[in-house]
């Protein structure tokens, strides 16, 4: 389990570092690394290009479609010779449109699209199944050399495989076919077992006072009477 935990923290880091960089850069947000992963601009015919040009407030830079704030909403990585998908993609977790066609990777591990909660259009090479499986998407259309996974479903109210969270936790969608369980309000700690916080200060105050009073009282009535012998 340790590697999984490690992977998680690495993933978190890879998300946090660009954010920090973006914050430090101030007004002109730096172009995210993932946009420069592949040389050249986005393809004219790609879904990303299409999506970005439809909307005034978005602009294309390198392979990405960005908002004014620098958030990635589209990423076109087609024909990038990607042999496998790994954590570099996590930077693009806010993407709505993602194009991965014409790449030689053979499978997608379930965790690659974790946290891709906005993803609505995913273009994949023909042989690759949509992440999360058939039921994670509203519809899947396949063309000559690519498949498009349309509109991810909310896994928390999925009727086929309902996501069940333990006691004191609720379900939050976490990407295609994925969900998270977070503590309901008031609960916290490991497995959401703890509720509220212990009034430490009040408790120590009361206990201290009582102990002090009883000790003084007993010392006065009992121990002081000890006869030195």
């Amino acid at each position, binding site marked *: *389990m340790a590697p*999984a*935990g490690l992977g*998680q923290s690495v993933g978190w880091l890879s998300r946090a570092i660009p954010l920090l960089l973006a914050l430090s850069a101030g007004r002109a947000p730096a172009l995210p690394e993932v946009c420069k992963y592949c040389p050249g601009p986005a393809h004219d015919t790609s879904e990303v290009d299409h999506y970005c040009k439809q909307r005034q407030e978005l602009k294309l830079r390198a392979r990405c479609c960005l908002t004014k704030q620098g958030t990635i909403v589209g990423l076109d990585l087609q024909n990038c010779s990607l042999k496998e998908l790994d954590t570099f993609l996590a930077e693009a977790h806010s993407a709505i449109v993602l194009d991965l066609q014409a790449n030689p990777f053979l499978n997608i591990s379930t965790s690659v699209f*974790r946290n891709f909660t906005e993803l609505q259009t995913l273009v994949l090479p023909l042989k690759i199944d949509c992440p999360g499986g058939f039921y994670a998407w509203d519809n899947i259309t396949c063309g000559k050399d690519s498949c498009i996974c349309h509109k991810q479903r909310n896994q928390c109210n999925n009727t086929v495989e309902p996501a*069940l*969270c*333990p006691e004191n936790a609720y379900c939050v969608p*976490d990407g295609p076919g*994925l*969900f*998270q*369980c*977070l*503590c309901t309000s008031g609960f916290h*700690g*490991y*497995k*959401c*077992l*703890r*509720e*509220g*916080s*212990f009034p430490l200060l009040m*408790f*120590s105050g009361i*206990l*201290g006072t*009582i*102990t002090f009073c*009883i*000790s*003084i*009282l*007993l*010392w006065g*009535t*009992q*121990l002081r*009477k*000890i*006869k030195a*012998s």
Partner: protein
Amino acid sequence: MAGPGTFQGGTWISRFTHHHVVVFLLTFFSYSLLHASRKTFSNVKVSISSQWTPTFLNKTAVKLEPVELWDSSHLFPNAEEATLFLGTLDTIFLFSYAVGLFISGIIGDRFNMRWVLSFGMCSSAVVEFCFGTLTEWLHFYNKWFYCSLWILNGLLQSTGWPCVVAVMGNWFGKAGRGVIFGLWSACASVGNILGACLASSVLQYGYEYAFLLTASVQFAGGIVIFFGLLISPEEIGLPGVEEEESSEDDPCRPLINNTDSEDHEPNYSIQEVSTIHQPKAISFYQACCLPGVMLYSLAYACLKLVNYSFFFWLPFYLSNNFRWKEAEADKLSIWYDVGGIVGGTLQGFISDMLQKRAPVLAGSLLLAIGSLVGYSRSPNNKTVNALLMTVTGFFIGGPSNMISAAISADLGHQELVQGSSEALATVTGIVDGTGSIGAAMGQFLVSLIQDNLGWMWVFYFFILMVSSLSHFSKESDLERSQGLGYGKEPVTVENQH
């Protein structure tokens, strides 16, 4: 042989000052707090084991996210193994407690018992705090660390019992000891209830706060003991129990006394001068050789085995055998405690009236066999079962309380140790220590027998234990009639004067 005034309640009750009341309450609650923290541990077991294990789902393929929240704790792979470890901690605790009792008794007799008791309570509170609260705050989970802390806790907790019994023995004389000690020995049961209440009131904040609460209350108790407990009436110039008794006893006693223990006679004028103010503690070996000590220790081992098995296994047996809900079984098992409290007090009272404890013990144990047979055939009916349980508690818990408190005090105050009144804690330690070894082995044996042969054989095993026990107490009767046993004590306590 009872002096005419001995049982007219007023005689001994009127001698009680507010110091007696304070000593009774302080010792009662200090042991209650020690027991409460043990109970806390058993009440938070479910929370602890879920803290130590990853989340278990029926669909093994699905791992809950985020991992830190659901799957980051891997001390044990599943709840069963965590439960097994918690059971092991119980056994470890009982054994180190037993060993500790032998040592603590010796220490208690050699140092000021107020310091020993206060130190024991405070340090064991610190250990419990480290065990339950600190490890959780630091997220440091380690099996060996837990084991060593619990061994240490057993050793430190063991300072409690010998000291409180010895202090009680110093303050409350032989007359009325049975009933007072019977009432007083309810402290363990009260501690259980207290611990359950304290733990359940803060368990929602996390199990670490249950430990924090009981540990700090216990620590506070230790401080109060340090500032308030008078370990003997002599400390404030009141007459000791032996002095009191000698002053009120009828004149014929010294005569019997002389014929009984002639070999001690030459010493006692010297003792009077030198040992009252500076009593010398007897050695562990000497204490073992005191008449009745080994016998009662072995008897208590058998009895505590059965008694603790009831404490530990009763809820499990009820939910296992009758398929009753665990919470209900927990509640129902309180009746055994109730029976024990009433039994201890009532039998103590009767033994005071007779001025003999062995016959009461033997009679009660004989009836205990009957009640065990009866209980093992209890129908699947909660009222009948609770009734039978109370009766069983009355006949098993009662004698158990009596041996651990009143008889221990008798044994520690007997004629042969008159020169050194500081034998009390050592003797109590030996009796309770042997008992705890029996109890620890019992936990192991019961699970073994239950697994292999079924519950009925567990009861047969209990019956065997209790029968061998009645045999012990008959033997001690024999000793008494030969003028060696503790039974002579009412006659000989006045040796010193």
